[in-house]
């Protein structure tokens, strides 16, 4: 069953994230992703994540699709104008990519190519509309396509962002633009997530919650400072500080978070720091393997 079917089926969804290499060789990342075989409904591939230059996700998604994974290709509006976005959407379909995660993208000054031109020709709402249009056989200018795409499009949301009303303004537009699911920023505070899930319950869109197992107290503090919208509770940081085995403690904390949000979300999205070596273990703790 592909990811889109899993969404429709009501099954609890598990996805996991990988990033393309900073060079030309795909061997390492393909073997890394290999650990996810049989564990996930889809693998997400990032698009110059955090504005750091990497290989195009089109290629890695294609390679993963060849090894039997369903993939969710991240597509930011930062680096491409509407011509290039359309080209890549056609390419995605042709390369066996079935799902797109539409997002604005971090600003170039946050990454390693700070002098890049920030494109933002479309925003994430308009990108979702574009995908919907191409799925019905037309391009941005309403010209007919020789063959339509059939892409399942989702988008991102940040449950911790305040004011919440402002987040909801954009989210409502994304839902009218036919987003079929939302994936959230990493959830560290189950109460904040559940409040968000409750606020958007009436919209009825499946929420896939982002999960980052903590690895160290230092790393947790770094994320709190550097990653917009991340808010790791001080209690958890203290637990990490005093734990004999911080990596296992991080997995325990993540498993507790997952248990606490499971009633309000449709799935989880695992985006570990430093590889998927412990992803199977985390899913085992949660009984999701």
């Amino acid at each position, binding site marked *: 069953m592909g990811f889109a079917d899993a969404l429709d089926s009501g099954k609890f969804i598990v996805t996991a994230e990988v990033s393309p290499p900073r060079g030309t060789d795909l061997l390492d990342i393909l073997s890394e992703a290999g650990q996810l075989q049989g564990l996930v409904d889809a693998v997400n591939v990032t698009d110059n994540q955090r504005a750091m230059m990497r290989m195009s996700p089109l290629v890695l998604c294609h390679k993963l699709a060849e090894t039997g994974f369903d993939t969710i290709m991240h597509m930011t509006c930062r680096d491409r104008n509407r011509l290039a976005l359309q080209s890549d959407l056609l390419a995605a379909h042709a390369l066996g990519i079935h799902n797109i995660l539409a997002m604005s993208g*971090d600003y170039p000054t946050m990454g390693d190519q700070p002098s890049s031109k920030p494109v933002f020709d479309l925003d994430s709402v308009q990108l979702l509309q574009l995908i919907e249009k191409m799925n019905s056989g037309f391009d941005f200018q309403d010209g007919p396509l020789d063959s339509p795409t059939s892409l399942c499009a989702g988008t991102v949301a940040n449950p*911790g*962002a305040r004011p919440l009303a*402002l987040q909801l*303004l954009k989210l409502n537009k994304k839902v009218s633009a036919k987003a079929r699911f939302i994936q959230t920023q990493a959830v560290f505070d189950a109460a904040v997530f559940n409040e968000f899930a409750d606020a958007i319950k009436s919209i009825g869109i499946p929420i896939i919650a982002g999960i980052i197992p903590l690895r160290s107290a230092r790393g947790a503090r770094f994320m709190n400072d550097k990653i917009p919208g991340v808010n790791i509770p001080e209690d958890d940081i203290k637990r990490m500080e005093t734990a004999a085995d911080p990596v296992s403690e991080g997995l325990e904390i993540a498993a507790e978070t997952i248990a606490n949000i499971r009633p309000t979300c449709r799935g989880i999205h695992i985006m570990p720091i430093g590889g998927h070596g412990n992803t199977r273990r985390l899913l085992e703790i949660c009984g999701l393997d």
Partner: protein
Amino acid sequence: MDEHMIITRLKPIEEILTMVGKFPASTICVVGCSICARKIQTGGETQVTSLAAQLSSHGLDMLDGKMVKHACSAKSWDELIEENPALAQADTLLVLSCGAGVSLLGRISGKPVLPGLNTTSIGGALANDTLEGVCVMCGECDVAIYAGLCPKSGCPKSQINGPCGGSSDGDCEVEGRKCIWVTIYEILECRGMLELLDDIKPPVCHDRRL
């Protein structure tokens, strides 16, 4: 003329020296502009005199600096010469105005013009404050929807359908900035006009500016 302003910044002296170095044995006149650049203190009398003195100390052949009324609008070169006869003696003009002024003086003078400033945005002057980047000249002004504020210029990502995911507690993900969407929202909420934001706004038509 206080109601509009082109925001400019003085180029580093090294860059100016490299530019003028391409025109050896040339008599140079620094030209300031009495509108925006003077107001924002990048191309007023003080900056013109000081740049001319600096270049002179590097051994360049400098005329006394001159101010024009508005570098971006003139009837003719002859008229400018009438007001400022010294300009006729210059081989090269080093202009402290926005890019439009530099370009216009180049066209009408027929002389090489060198930009002494970098033009960065359209802004405004509010008492002693300079407002930078309040318009990016999109060609389809719709700030009425956004409480008079412009997200195309005020938001680094030009988000016109609501904030990006990086907006957090009123701050923009780009360091040192406020998220303009929070301000837009607060004003419209106060006016009871939040429904202005409900519709999905289509992308800007960039061909309208051609």
